[in-house]
């Protein structure tokens, strides 16, 4: 009896020490789930989700404070990816946050620009080049299309230009026989009652 108690106490102490050391040694810095979520977000940094950037939104989702359907630039594809990652139901995009738009980049009308630098300060990715009283211009390849530079412009000289497909970026369409939206099918597959007439 006593031997058994001693053996198990000793084992408990040994394993306790091992676990304690392991917890210290292999401590994970930050929240790995937030990293994974951040990986799936489009990094537009537009703040339409109500958080100041993609990372804070990812952290809020990881803490369970924010729903996964608040990212209009990511749209359906991002929501499905997040749902897959987190093992939750995909939700339709929250219409209050905006709608999924065609990808676009900001373009400054250089004839109208007065060089006020307000857009430069608003750009979350430093994609606008210019200085006070000098003409500004958007570096197209770096622009995320967040539209944050539009409201501060005092002369409304910034517009959004949709990114046109080129032969290199051309995407083959899905054959017509397989058209119902993925969202519809995923929802239909996962929940007991199908949503709408998704199986066209």
């Amino acid at each position, binding site marked *: 009896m006593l031997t058994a108690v001693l053996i198990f106490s000793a084992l408990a102490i040994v394993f306790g020490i091992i676990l304690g050391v392991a917890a210290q040694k292999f401590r994970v810095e930050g929240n790995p789930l937030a990293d994974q979520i951040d990986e799936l977000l489009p990094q537009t940094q537009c703040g339409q989700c109500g958080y100041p950037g993609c990372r804070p939104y990812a952290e809020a989702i990881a803490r369970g404070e924010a729903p996964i359907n608040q990212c209009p630039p990511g749209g359906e594809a991002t929501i499905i990816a997040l749902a897959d990652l987190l093992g939750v139901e995909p939700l339709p995009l929250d219409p209050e946050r905006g709608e999924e738009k065609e990808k676009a980049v900001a373009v400054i009308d250089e004839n109208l620009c007065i060089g006020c630098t307000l857009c430069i300060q608003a750009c979350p990715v430093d994609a606008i080049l210019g200085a006070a009283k000098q003409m500004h211009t958007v570096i197209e390849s770096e622009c995320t299309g967040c539209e944050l530079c539009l409201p501060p412009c005092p002369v409304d000289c910034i517009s959004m230009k949709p990114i046109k497909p080129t*032969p290199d970026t051309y995407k083959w369409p899905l054959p017509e026989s397989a058209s119902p939206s993925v969202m519809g099918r995923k929802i239909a597959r996962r929940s007991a009652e199908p949503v709408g007439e998704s199986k066209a």
Partner: protein
Amino acid sequence: MIKLYDFHGGIHLPGKKSLSNNTPIQQLACSKRLVLPLQMHIGEPARPEVGVGEHVGKGQRLARPDGFISAAIHAPTSGTVVAIESLPIPHPSGLSAPCIVIEADGEDRWEKPFEPWDDYQSHTPLEIRQRLRDAGVVGLGGAVFPTAAKLAVPPDRPIKTLILNGAECEPYITCDDRVMRERADQIIEGGRILLHASGAERCLIGVEDNKPEAIASLQAAIKAAEDTRFEVVAVPTRYPAGGERQLILTLTGIEIPRNRHATDYGLLCQNVATAASVYRAVVLGEPVISRVVTVTGEGINRPGNFEVRIGTPISDVIAAAGGYKSGVDRLLMGGPMMGFALADDTVPVVKATNCLLALHPQDREPEQPPMPCIRCGQCAEACPVNLLPQQLYWYSRAKDLDRTREYHIFDCIECGVCAAVCPAHIPLVQYFRFAKTEIWASERERLKANKARERHKFHQERIAREKAEREAMLAKKRAALAAKQTNQSQTGSDKSAIKDEIAAAMARVKARKAAAQTKKASEPAQVGSPTYTESEKP
């Protein structure tokens, strides 16, 4: 005779080659206006080096290769550059891309950019590679991969065998057949140059056994050249025997694994027409400014093969072949299996244009509405790359892109065999193309998102750094001020100090005024000839 091996799957297709392979290659007259897309090859687009309005000679370089995998573009005739702009190109999307437009002056005057090298053996492989790069030589079988880049192999993996691909397995297409019949000597000579440039010891020419005339012609040319390194091998006619990996497997028994290249196994595969253009580039000093195009199909009045300048409008080529028959509803670039439908025929012939195929609805398999997949597995049996097309189909359809990658969608050569054997008439290749371009797009998005994340992080760091710097500066100033104050409070109250300073300054001003007045009073008469006091001297 060498032992032949068998590749998995494949199908027998009606050849329909006799439509176009009975007449010799005809020279097509040069069109008035030629449109040359800057990207007619795999890799980076070429960089233009002529300006609008400039007069160019035939063969003059218009754009130079930009990057290692890229190819030069040359003027197909003499004339004037009238525009460099975005124009529709032959592409499944029907979209536009940057092109150089030349208006021919009708003189067709050569301005050869290179010396002809009759003695190519005295030039190093590197020089030959450089020549091929400058001459814009690319694979003319349809993949248009720059030949110079393909020849550049690491020295630790020498090329042992050169394979010239004359299989031409797709129905209707006969351009390689005609080139082999009529220009076998150029092919063999080009093959010898490629042997020299690659260091290979032997050359196998794979030709499907439905082209006996081509085989005979090549054998005669080898005999004439007295080169024992060459061997013509008739391979069984079975689509897609002309796929690079399929032909290599048939001829050598080596199955190239995914993510590896033929060159990793000491093999180099080139199309026969490419070999002929290698000969022309090296020995004659002629860049690639034309190619042989098959114009065929039941919808063409006089099918045949034409030597066409690159950039010629496709409508001119069709007109030379007698035009369309009535009722034609589809024009394909490429063969019926791997080609794509052109939206209109004003787009130019490019280096990849091996065939123009005009068809009536009745010439094709009737298009039947796709039915559900019954998982019969015929597609998997027919797939020449041992894929599971039905699994790929399900995952592509469900947009489950990760799964399509797990099932190796990028090994698919889009040969169309699976769709041809499918009893449910499912357009399988379309699904795979959809999934592939979707994956590429998401990859581009991911890279862009990563860049945006980096930049946003840097932006935040910059804002924080600037704030910290400003605060540090303010703190420093505040500290300096505080130090001054403590100093002054030690000597006396700062109010009295300021008062003292003001009083002293006022006293100085008063003294100066008084001095000026006395000066004026003492020297009133000498205004005309001013004198200067010691301190006032300029």
